[in-house]
């Protein structure tokens, strides 16, 4: 589904502030994979998502989506295959427009022509869709989205993203800005939608329990590299304790290597 080959991303190339945030990254995401992505701040998780969705371009390397090279394609061209949800609950919806307008906008991807699709049957199907959220939004379709709470907006964004049928779902800490109760609601919905639709998903999370509980694969990033990649059966056996052990082992080894380099 997604293949990244030898990706390198350097910001401020050729300036004093030059910083390489992704170095030599290779990953193949299979169709139907649900990958949780963990790593400390600055590990390159969001940069990885930006590279996949095309809001930034790699300094080196190739990106393939569904077998087609998209390395230099702008974001809007790849968007047909990708649904992305951000940490900020405001980022996925248009505040000053009604729920039904928002749902109409996201109901199909690609260029829009000036004809009217927002018909009564469309409104009814939107009503059915928002019922799945169990938040009582079905009676508020004509209200502006900015009257909703953060949790409601993020749940709506999730629903809108999923119903636009993307091939790949990118979740960038999409529950991190919500209170624990709403975060749980949105997380439960996420799990349900991904299972129902069998979506290929990458999810960045800071919640170790989520990272271990969800998905069939876990990757840990550190300083722009994937240092841990646990798949399928091994992922099922994985515990928080084990993950921390693996991380410290790798870190220790790195540290020793560095020392060897310095002394020689």
């Amino acid at each position: 589904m997604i293949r990244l080959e030898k990706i390198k991303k350097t910001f401020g190339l050729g300036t004093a502030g030059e910083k390489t945030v992704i170095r030599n990254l290779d990953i193949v995401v299979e169709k139907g994979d649900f990958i949780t992505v963990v790593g400390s701040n600055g590990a390159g998780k969001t940069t990885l998502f930006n590279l996949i969705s095309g809001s930034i371009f790699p300094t080196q390397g190739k990106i393939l989506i569904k077998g087609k090279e998209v390395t230099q394609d702008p974001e809007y061209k790849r968007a047909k295959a990708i649904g992305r949800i951000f940490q900020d609950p405001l980022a996925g919806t248009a505040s000053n427009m009604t729920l039904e307008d928002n749902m109409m906008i996201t109901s199909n991807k690609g260029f829009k022509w000036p004809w009217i699709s927002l018909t009564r049957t469309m409104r009814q199907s939107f009503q059915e869709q928002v019922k799945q959220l169990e938040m009582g939004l079905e009676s508020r379709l004509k209200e502006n989205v900015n009257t909703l709470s953060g949790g409601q907006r993020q749940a709506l964004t999730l629903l809108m993203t999923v119903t636009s049928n993307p091939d790949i779902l990118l979740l960038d800490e999409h529950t991190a800005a919500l209170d624990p109760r709403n975060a749980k609601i949105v997380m439960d919905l996420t799990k349900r939608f991904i299972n129902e639709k069998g979506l290929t998903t990458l999810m960045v999370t800071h919640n170790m329990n989520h990272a271990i509980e969800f998905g069939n694969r876990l990757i840990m990033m550190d300083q722009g590299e994937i240092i841990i990649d646990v798949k399928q059966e091994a992922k099922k056996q994985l515990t928080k304790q084990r993950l921390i052990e693996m991380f410290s082992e790798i870190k220790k080894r790195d540290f020793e290597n560095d020392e060897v380099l310095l002394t020689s």
Partner: protein
Amino acid sequence: MIEGIFVEGLIYSIMALGVFFTFRILDFPDLTVDGSFPMGAVIMAACLHQGVNPVSGLVMAFSGGVMAGVVTAEIHNRLKVPHLLAGILTMTMLYSVNIRILSNRANLPLLRVDTILTKLHAWSDGFIPPEWASLIFFILVVIVIKKGLDLFFITDMGLMFGALGNNEQMVRTQGVNPAILKSIGVGLSNGLVALSGAFAAQYQGFADVNLGQGIVVSGLASVMLGEFLLRSNRISILTLRVVLGTILFKAIMYLGRYYGYYINMTPNDLKLIAGILIIISLAAANIRNRKEKARS
């Protein structure tokens, strides 16, 4: 005089609808308006002097405005220039272009040619007085344009413009190139502005390249005044209040022009009044927002 206020208000409301489109829907503060409004006027005048029929003249004026808007949007898109600067560039260039369109003249009277209004008056002569015929005509024109816009904004493309003004990321996520939407939107907006200029020239009986000075400010003032009249999130009400706001704005300007001398005001002070109106509207909107925040 009262029908004069309404006719002028209606003519300028077409321009204000264009300003509303860019400033409020697209969130693209577009200053091209100061150039595209007289552009519409001079294209219309040039067409009429060439013997082109008025309806074709209006179409030409509209098209000219669209092109001006597209130029602004493309300068912004391709060269990554801020929208304000892109608008000022086009507006300044249009000043020269407009003089060219008038064959190196700064103004052109329309007294000896048949305008859409003289044709209308010739037809209505005998059963409706000319002022009232103009009023009815412009009411119909504005209704058609307003209804057309209302419909346009609920189409899939129209909704995309709303999304663009709210959240550009959302447009990209939907697989639409925001640059193309901006060109279409700013183009259409300036088409309306030029159309308004074409009507204004015919109503006043002359076209002048300086007709556009401060027009964007008066359009914005009209939009803001309208926002105090009605509150809603329905597009039909939003466009209606632009029209009402423009008529109110024109009424205030009329009062200033005819009764201003009581307080030592001259017509030269009107632009100052327009600016002050905007500042008052902004301040009032600020206070209202703060109150609402405090309540919620």
